[in-house]
């Protein structure tokens, strides 16, 4: 089963949902690919299927990450209307209101490593090299609410393999785009975040089958407020690990500081694995409100260790005291 990859500003009832920048990229696929130092090592096999790879994707059933009972999909309006993206303001509705100020096209990603390699990769080139699939994941925010979201994208492992850095590294670090003029939240004098926003994964976490790079949701290209044009999705960790609007990727051997960790190290650890037994000083992590919730039926459900993905990721941490390394 294949679906059209359509524009987030158009609803399915629109007759010609073909005008998104992603589709433009599909058109450009036949054009010559710009290559960079890191890209050069990549065998960019061009098969016939590559030409449709952008606007079609493997369904969640085929990819093996379908909706798991009793989860229910969170409606698109909630997924795209209720966001934490402090670059655009503190209120949950601010990102939907202000993130459109971010220039998405062109989008280049700076790739670098401790070894001194650097390269700038165009998002379009990256997208052209990836096969898209759909995955339905639970997203658990550290603020004790959660959603169920059908993402479109590709495994992070595929991307890292494609980037193919020289040498081996223990960590991969990500930074969000930081453009003061386009991000009103970063101009707030009362914010204590040291921009740009940073996140990182251990290499084995990054290569885990669950780690995903999303370029779309609900079969549409990512709305800006959800982290367009590409964002990380690591569903067994609190939402703040799933960094949005990635502008740079760095391979390193030293464990990087993450943004929340540097703001409040006793509240936010490097790992940030969903864990009902490790409490946060602001929110009990034992329960979550599965959104949409309502006053009279709050939809409060118990939180599961690793957000219910333990069978895929628990092994990563078998030698780790999760209370100490939260």
């Amino acid at each position: 089963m294949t679906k059209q990859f359509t524009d987030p500003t158009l609803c399915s009832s629109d007759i010609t949902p073909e005008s998104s920048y992603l589709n433009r990229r599909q058109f450009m696929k036949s054009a010559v690919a710009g290559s960079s130092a890191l890209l050069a090592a990549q065998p960019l096999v061009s098969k016939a299927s590559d030409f449709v790879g952008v606007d079609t994707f493997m369904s969640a059933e085929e990819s093996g990450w379908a909706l798991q009972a009793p989860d229910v999909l969170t409606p698109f309006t909630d997924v795209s209307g209720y966001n934490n993206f402090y670059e655009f303001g503190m209120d949950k509705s601010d990102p939907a209101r202000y993130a459109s100020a971010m220039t998405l096209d062109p989008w280049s990603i700076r790739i670098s490593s401790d070894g001194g390699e650097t390269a700038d990769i165009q998002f379009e080139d990256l997208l052209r090299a990836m096969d898209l699939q759909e995955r339905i994941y639970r997203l658990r925010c550290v603020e004790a609410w959660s959603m169920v979201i059908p993402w479109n994208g590709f495994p992070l492992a595929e991307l890292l393999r494609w980037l193919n850095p020289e040498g081996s590294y223990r960590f991969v670090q990500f930074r969000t785009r930081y453009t003061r003029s386009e991000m009103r939240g970063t101009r707030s004098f009362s914010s204590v975040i040291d921009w740009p926003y940073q996140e990182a994964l251990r290499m084995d976490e990054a290569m885990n089958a669950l780690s995903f790079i999303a370029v779309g949701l609900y079969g549409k290209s990512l709305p800006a407020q959800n982290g367009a044009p590409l964002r990380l999705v690591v569903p067994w960790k609190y939402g703040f690990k799933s960094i949005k609007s990635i502008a740079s990727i760095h391979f390193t051997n030293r464990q990087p500081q993450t943004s929340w960790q540097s703001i409040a190290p006793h509240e936010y650890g490097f790992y940030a694995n969903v864990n009902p037994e490790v409490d946060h000083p602001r929110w009990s992590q034992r329960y979550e409100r599965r959104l949409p919730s309502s006053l009279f039926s709050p939809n409060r459900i118990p939180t599961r260790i690793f957000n219910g993905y333990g069978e895929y990721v628990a092994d990563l941490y078998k030698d780790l005291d999760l209370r100490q390394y939260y």
Partner: protein
Amino acid sequence: MGLKRRLGAGRWAIHVAGLLSFIWLAAAAIQNQLGPDPIKQLALLTGDRGFQFLLFSLAISPLARMVSAPLLIQWRRPAGLWAFYFLCLHLLVFAQGYIGWSWALLVEELIERPYISVGALAWLMLVPLALTSTRLARRKLGRRWGVLHRLVFVVAALGCVHLLWQVRADWINAGLYTLICVLIVGSRYRNASWFLKAN
């Protein structure tokens, strides 16, 4: 002069403001206009409205002195009562949406999250103030009434701590409430006003 004498009746305006504020909140909640997480939204809205009425009630007596309109003092009681009312709703929302009416979770929250225990202490202190807000209680308590009702300053201070403890990435909200508290309490010091006049 006539206006100042009629100011007392203005306390009804406070009741209207409180009532409208509540109707707006209830309507928004019932019509599902508070977004996908209305519980959180209601916790924030009721906390804000309660604290705002509390600050307003605190500001009244310095204001009355400033504009020499003693009848303004009559506004204090409705403002304080609406503060208590919204903070009761705040607590109800917390019980319903955050801990699902579980005593065990309440105890856990009180022990593990100091911002909750501070908020709860503040709310508890408001209870005797609300109960003794009647004219009868005031007459019976005599001078002790004034002493008891000074607790409201402690409530305001704890309210500020409640907010400051919630600060994560941005301190503007907690900062503004605290600043306003400090300004109101500061304005009560005659020395300060004397100092300002002397300049």
